[in-house]
């Protein structure tokens, strides 16, 4: 039976803590990112990479929910978009300082996710997916219709001050520096999620995902851990939203549209949701494939639909999952 959340065993007791390796790897990855930022000649390519990385963070949030809770969200753009609008609206009305707006943008989506989560994590799989689609789209409709509050369909520019937390804002708007910022964020996020997944909490949520009933019968409450996973997933997604807004300094209801959620979901699936780094891989593949599609990008939606169908039929663990399997097979001849 196919299980898109994967079939690799959880980290076992026998595996020694590889924290040193993980931290070292993270630093090396960030270093590699710096090299990329410094050496890639084309600014256009840099912009593409930056967008890919921000999307990768969004996809990672969606993927983490699939991995830990075993549910597929079609509405994560809601958390992403709420973060975007939080900054945009705060700046527009001059009510709060930019730094505070950013903090708000990072806190509000997870807080809402937690409250919503306490209610909806009990809802079974497919109904959950349907609900997330409806929730996400409701947010979109609200942004479209409530013109006085959100500026409606056209969206609006976000006015940012010259510096944020002491860092010049220009840094967030130059593709090279922003790539490094976003890339570093992605690496650190993946590291943090990997540590969480390996922790007792992470393993508990996998157990609950596997068999919610038995988890209760061995003494665990199952609603709270799952709500916390949704919260964490929303937090990661909110980070993507903040980065997007700082980079583009523009917000419109598009950030809330179901196609935004759908793209992130597809990136996660293509890359392999069972791996922490799978969705990020999927995002990179997604962006490069789109770039390669060139003129055919007019039919990008159809192309990505076909890719999704093919992956689900033939490679349910995603490209990342397949690569991991190949690697494992090499090591055990």
């Amino acid at each position, binding site marked *: 039976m196919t299980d898109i959340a994967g079939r690799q065993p959880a980290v076992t007791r026998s595996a020694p803590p590889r924290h040193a390796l993980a931290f070292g790897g993270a630093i090396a990855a960030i270093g590699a990112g710096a090299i990329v930022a410094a050496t890639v000649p084309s600014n256009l390519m840099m912009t593409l990479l930056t967008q890919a990385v921000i999307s990768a963070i969004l996809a990672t949030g969606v993927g983490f929910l699939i991995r830990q809770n075993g549910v597929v969200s079609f509405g994560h753009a809601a958390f992403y978009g709420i973060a975007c609008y939080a900054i945009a609206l705060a700046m527009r009305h001059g009510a709060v300082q930019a730094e505070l707006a950013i903090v708000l943008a990072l806190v509000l989506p997870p807080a809402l996710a937690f409250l919503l989560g306490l209610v909806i994590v009990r809802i079974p799989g497919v109904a959950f997916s349907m609900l997330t689609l409806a929730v996400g789209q409701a947010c979109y409709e609200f942004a479209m219709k409530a013109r006085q509050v959100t500026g409606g369909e056209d969206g609006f520019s976000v006015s940012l001050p010259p510096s944020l937390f002491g860092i010049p804002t220009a840094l967030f708007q130059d593709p090279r520096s922003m790539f490094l910022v976003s890339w570093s964020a992605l690496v650190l996020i993946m590291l943090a999620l990997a540590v969480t997944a390996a922790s007792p909490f992470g393993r508990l949520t996998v157990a609950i995902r596997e*068999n919610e009933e038995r988890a209760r019968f061995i003494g665990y409450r199952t609603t709270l851990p799952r709500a916390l996973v949704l919260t964490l997933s929303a937090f990661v997604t909110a980070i993507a939203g903040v980065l997007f807004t700082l980079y583009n300094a523009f917000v419109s209801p598009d950030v809330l549209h179901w196609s935004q959620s759908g793209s992130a979901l597809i990136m996660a699936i293509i890359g392999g949701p069972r791996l922490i780094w799978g969705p990020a891989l999927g995002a990179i593949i997604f962006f490069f494939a789109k770039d390669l599609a060139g003129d055919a990008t007019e039919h990008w939606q159809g192309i990505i639909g076909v890719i999704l169908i093919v992956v689900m039929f033939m490679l349910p663990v995603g490209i990342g999952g397949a690569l991991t399997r190949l690697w494992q097979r090499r090591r055990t001849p």
Partner: protein
Amino acid sequence: MTEILAIEGTDLTRPFGGFIALKGVDIAVPRGEIRGLIGPNGAGKSTLIDVLSGRASHWSGTVRMFGADIGAMTAQRRRRAGLARSFQRTNIFPDLTVIDQLEIAARAAETPNVDEIMAELNLTALALRRAADISYGDQRRLDLALALIGRPKILLLDEPAAGLSIRESLDLAHGLKDLVARWGVTVLLVEHDMEVVFSICDRITVLHLGAILAEGTPDEIRRIPEVVTAYLGTSV
């Protein structure tokens, strides 16, 4: 001498769709006893376990644990209070390794006795194997192991020997008897395997069509004509 009743159900009734699965059942198991619960299929044995363990809904009556009314407690809280159960249809965590799931269970319990239980149920060699990959018999024992972690005070076991070979069943039976002696745990055991039931149970309750048909020691039960003809056959 008043015995302490570990688990007690009074006037338990459970309607199920059109028919009534339990009809005002009374059951009381004193502490330290191994009680067998037998009866034909559809008698209501699993339903009774479900009511006592907090799995069933829409039931009426009273459930008491060491005198305290636990009827309103969720299954999760009952487990924390020391009431554990195993399942007739194997209910394990397929994707986790054997040791991982036992450790997760241990973290919720007071006494993390993972190694002891693995040794007791011959699971040590399988510790790092994925639960979905081990044999059916091993999975049954894992299901039981998940119930035994933490030395619960009361064990409700629903056909733990189902699908096991004769040899495995008897090993299981004697292992259980051992544990009971060492831990002082109380056991309510649903089983179809009469060898197991008659060899380790102190008393037996016979359930038929949702009501108690008979209750007594194995010898007493053996001699009741209705039970023998309806259920036991002549081999026991």
